[in-house]
């Protein structure tokens, strides 16, 4: 265990577990766009955590005006609703705030799954080679042949519609890019001198993988994970928009579906359907900026 409090003349302060984990992520802190992306994420995370206190209303509650009429299609500011209300009399602002929760949960979970599966498949295929490699790469070929959005739709519709199933469906297809890249990276690592040396000196495969391969792979996993966040959030929005989303949770995709189905377009209720899209753009571009930052670290050649 690292002892961060230990102070001695010879001891360089051992970084704590959290700091080591942080360092392992190689966050691209040198790039202004990436920093902007990280800041946007932090803001969304704060909003998501404190959603109950930030939101002015329960996002699903049907609201009434002071003269006991349904608070339907109120414009921003009317009756004190900051961003207006929906046709069903729900508070748009509160829905936006709560929507950040499902967006983050979906995005981060899908990214985690994609990175995890992709990394495991890539490392195993690349390190062990042979028939394992053949099988896994054929699986990746198949995954490339599956139309992503239709697959998620069918799976979300046939299993019960929930955030978890959407995440599962996405992970089942999206690991393919990560897997291929990590496999080829593992292939080059496997033939490095120090890996050879470890193998000759009798280290077990598991030990070599954990010691020498995975630490070098991790930034790539994060890169592909950060790309997957955006994909996942956009996909979830599409799925919810088509009506296959989790009926229990308020998401921006759901808001857009609600607006579309309630004729918000012909009513010109821009205050209703513009903000969810803008928030999606914000969080997805934040992901892009972070992944571009990663790319600049990983492939300095691309920095121009």
């Amino acid at each position, binding site marked *: 265990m690292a002892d961060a409090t230990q102070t001695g003349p010879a001891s360089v302060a051992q970084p704590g577990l959290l700091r080591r984990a942080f360092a392992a992520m190689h966050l691209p802190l040198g790039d202004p766009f990436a920093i902007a992306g990280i800041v946007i994420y932090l803001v969304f995370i704060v909003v998501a955590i404190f959603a109950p206190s930030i939101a002015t209303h329960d996002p699903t509650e049907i609201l009434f005006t002071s003269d006991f009429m349904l608070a339907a299609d109120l414009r921003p500011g009317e009756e004190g609703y900051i961003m207006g209300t929906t046709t069903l009399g729900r508070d748009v602002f509160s829905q936006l705030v709560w929507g950040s929760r499902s967006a983050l949960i979906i995005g981060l979970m899908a990214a985690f799954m994609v990175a995890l599966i992709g990394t495991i498949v890539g490392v195993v295929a690349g390190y062990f080679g042979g028939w394992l490699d053949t099988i896994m790469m054929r699986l990746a*070929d198949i995954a490339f042949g*599956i139309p992503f959005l239709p697959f998620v739709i069918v799976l979300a519709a046939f299993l019960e519609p929930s955030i978890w199933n959407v995440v599962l469906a996405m992970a089942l297809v999206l690991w393919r890019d990560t897997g291929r890249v990590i496999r080829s990276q593992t292939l080059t690592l496997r033939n490095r001198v120090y890996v050879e040396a470890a193998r000759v000196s009798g280290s077990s495969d598991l030990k070599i993988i954990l010691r020498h391969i995975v630490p070098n792979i991790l930034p790539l996993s994060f890169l592909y994970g950060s790309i997957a966040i955006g994909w996942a959030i956009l996909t979830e929005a599409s799925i919810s*928009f088509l*009506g296959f989303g989790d009926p229990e949770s308020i998401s921006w995709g759901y808001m857009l579906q609600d607006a579309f189905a309630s004729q918000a377009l012909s009513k010109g209720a821009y205050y209703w359907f513009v903000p969810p899209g803008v928030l999606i753009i914000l969080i997805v571009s934040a992901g892009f900026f972070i992944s571009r930052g990663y790319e600049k670290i990983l492939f300095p050649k691309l920095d*121009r």
Partner: protein
Amino acid sequence: MGTATAIGARLAQTLFVLWAVVTILFFLFRLMPGSPLAAYIDPNFTPEQQEALLARFGLDQPLWKQYFIYLGNLLQGDLGESFFYRTPVAERVFELLPNTLILTFSSLILAYIFGVLAGAYLAWKRGGAVEQIAIPLVLTTRAMPEFWLGMLLLAVFSFSFGWFPAGGTRPPCMEFESTIALYTSSAFWWHMTLPVLTLAIYSQGLPLLLMRSNMLDVMREDFVTMARIKGLSPFTVVIRHAARNALLPVMTSFAIAVGYQIQGNVVVETIFSWPGLGRELVRAVSAADYPLAQGAFLMIAVVVILMNLVADLLYAALDPRVTRG
């Protein structure tokens, strides 16, 4: 490896993936909760009638037998019968495929023409103020949900200004003698404008960014410098040498983009009530019309897989270093 062997191996891989996707599809649709015929069976049916129905769709057979029947039927172009329309799925799917393809190709061609030109231009004007604005803007279009962009365009150009129709392929009152007559009518293209624009705006980022970064690479190549030393005009240097080389991977990406686009069409077709494969898939899944959903899914998958193949072959065909190696 000879070119012929490589192409042969690639074709074999394509067939394998096709088979695998077909198989996954078969079992995927068996995941559906409840009886697959639930939507089809009238509650007033007698048990005998229900069994007769099951037999008609081959659902009384054991699973493995169903699978082989399904494979056999597929090979004969039989995709089953739609529960909802009570007509062959293949017929319906092939009726919708052109609508989807027209939408996909028109929007992508538009996106690629714009993206390639703008990308080449941005590479040429590298480091300028245009770049500072253009690149984040392009990234933003990539971060946009396509259907939301469609909603915006609808709200502004259809509902507010009334310049474009809100959906479908033709005005409700208009009838056309044939599909050809429909496709060549101005009304059709009028209806197509907004969905094509939506998809094109979303798609132009890929060719643009790809073209730009390829151009930046190629502009540093010796042969571009040599072209300048030869006293060729700046136009010849940039277009005939730099752009021509940078274009190779962009062309290849077109095929891949078709594959991506056609699956993403699902939402945009739904927004614009465009009678295509994607919208049909959504409707069929919602209505538990699984033969139709399966057929639409399969069709989309076939396009994706074929486009992956085309991308590889195109790359080989366009790059003399691969073909004439």
